[in-house]
């Protein structure tokens, strides 16, 4: 695709001026890093970093039938969020029980909801929702909020730094609990993220985005690219759509069974297909014991048959490589497996993920105590 065809966010000029390495991501020209991906990763684990994620699509569902539609379209139960500002993570399934997308839904008020969906799937998602709405909620309006920029501020110091940068924001957001959000004038700020750290995701009118970014940078929030975002989410054990989740794979085999709510008789898309096909595989964490780097789509040999990595990278926090892998369900955390890495057979251990939460390794008990190759200083 020619660069001219790529879309840019309201922060594009800021990224260019900062010398970011820009890459094509889902049709958008986005910063991969601003110098060192690993330094950006550590900034989020140790202090505060920020990401331009304006390529993600915000979709507001306004009018009669929004809750009804989402109760049908989402595998998680939208009924769990009854208070304005509450958020819910869910997969949206197709009739085959595969995942159309994973998203966060917010209950706004007056029966309205806001969805934040992935950039690469946004058009497909909106078309799918409109199709479902045509019969289930014909009076519903879907509004694609392409007027909004999205900035994620993440890290142990993220909230405090955001309060320093935007003192006026404090009363609206300081009491927010995890997975809840509040309006502040025309900003919408949620205590959510994709890094395993505390922080906010801020939806800001596009024309305000540069000033907001600069204000955060002035108080010491480090600009971070999508590269660090990927290693942070992988350490946090969070799925990436298109790698760990896809249209042909059940959420029950993707580590997100906890988000599929079958506690009531609710009729949601894909439910019958899931019931007809019990999971045979499970998404597990792998830590590489040998030196090397795991990547997606490598074959994993286990005592119960073969599996495949879905995401893999180097973990800057652990100082070794980690992966998510779809393995036969009988494989358990603690088991030893091997991974075929570019013609070599490397030893890895199955672990219970997330690998890292709030700056700390969660997998040390699975690992040999003496071997920490390249451990982060």
């Amino acid at each position, binding site marked *: 695709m020619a660069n001219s065809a790529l879309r840019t966010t309201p922060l594009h000029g800021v990224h260019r001026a900062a*010398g970011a*390495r820009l890459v094509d991501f889902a049709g958008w020209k986005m910063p*991969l*890093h601003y110098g*060192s*991906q*690993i330094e950006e990763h550590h900034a989020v684990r140790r202090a505060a970093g920020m990401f331009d994620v304006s390529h993600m699509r915000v979709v507001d569902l306004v009018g009669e039938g929004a809750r009804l539609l989402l109760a049908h379209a989402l595998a998680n139960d939208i009924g769990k969020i009854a208070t304005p500002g509450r958020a819910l993570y869910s997969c949206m399934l197709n009739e085959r029980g595969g995942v159309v997308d994973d998203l966060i839904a917010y209950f706004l008020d007056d029966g309205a909801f806001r969805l934040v969906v992935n950039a690469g799937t946004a058009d497909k998602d909106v078309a799918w929702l409109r199709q479902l709405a045509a019969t289930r909620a014909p009076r519903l309006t879907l509004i694609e909020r392409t007027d909004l920029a999205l900035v994620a501020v993440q890290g142990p110091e993220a909230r405090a730094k955001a309060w320093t940068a935007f003192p006026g924001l404090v009363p609206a957001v300081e009491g927010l609990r995890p997975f809840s959000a509040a309006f502040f004038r025309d900003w919408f700020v949620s205590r959510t993220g994709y890094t395993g750290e505390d922080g906010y995701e801020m939806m800001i009118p596009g024309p305000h985005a540069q000033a907001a970014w600069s204000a955060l940078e002035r108080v010491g929030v480090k600009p971070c690219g999508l*590269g660090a975002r990927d*290693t942070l989410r992988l350490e946090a054990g969070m799925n990436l759509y298109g790698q760990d989740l896809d249209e042909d794979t059940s959420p029950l085999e993707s580590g997100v069974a906890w988000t599929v709510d079958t506690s009531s008789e609710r009729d949601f898309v894909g439910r019958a297909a899931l019931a007809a096909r019990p999971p045979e595989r499970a998404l597990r964490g792998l830590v590489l014991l040998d*030196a*090397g*780097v795991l*990547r997606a789509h490598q074959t994993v040999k286990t005592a119960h048959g073969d599996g495949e990595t879905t995401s893999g*990278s*180097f973990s*800057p926090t652990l100082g070794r*490589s980690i992966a998510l892998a779809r393995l036969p369900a009988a494989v358990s955390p603690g088991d030893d497996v091997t991974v075929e890495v*570019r013609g*070599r057979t490397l030893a890895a251990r199955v672990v219970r993920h997330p690998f890292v939460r709030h700056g700390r390794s969660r997998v040390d008990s699975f690992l040999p105590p003496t071997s920490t*190759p*390249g451990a982060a200083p």
Partner: protein
Amino acid sequence: MTTKTPAELKYTESHEWVRLESDGTAVVGITDFAQEALGDIVFVEFPVVGRKVKAGDTVGVVESVKAASDIYAPLAGEIVAVNDGLTDAWEGINKDAYGAWLFKMKPADRSEADKLLDAATYAKGAGAAA
């Protein structure tokens, strides 16, 4: 982004640099352009010392946080040393791509090095690829 291309070295289209030493060996690393494109390097799979290779053979892998990239033998010959000093200090390649050599080889025919790219030609090609 401008990257360095020292004039005294030879280059390959696959982004290795080569320095011919007076003792008959050739020192090989990856170029500044290559390290810049790869991003933070976190592992190198070195060739086995003693291995005899043809020019263009895959002899190792450089792994960055982002991607894996093969290393190719720039010349035919034998691998005689690898830079173990880089182990767990891989960022040295990002900091100084021309100081952080990866392996040394004994070329079968030193004159083959004449076919490698000079700095100006390599810089032009790498610029076009960027």
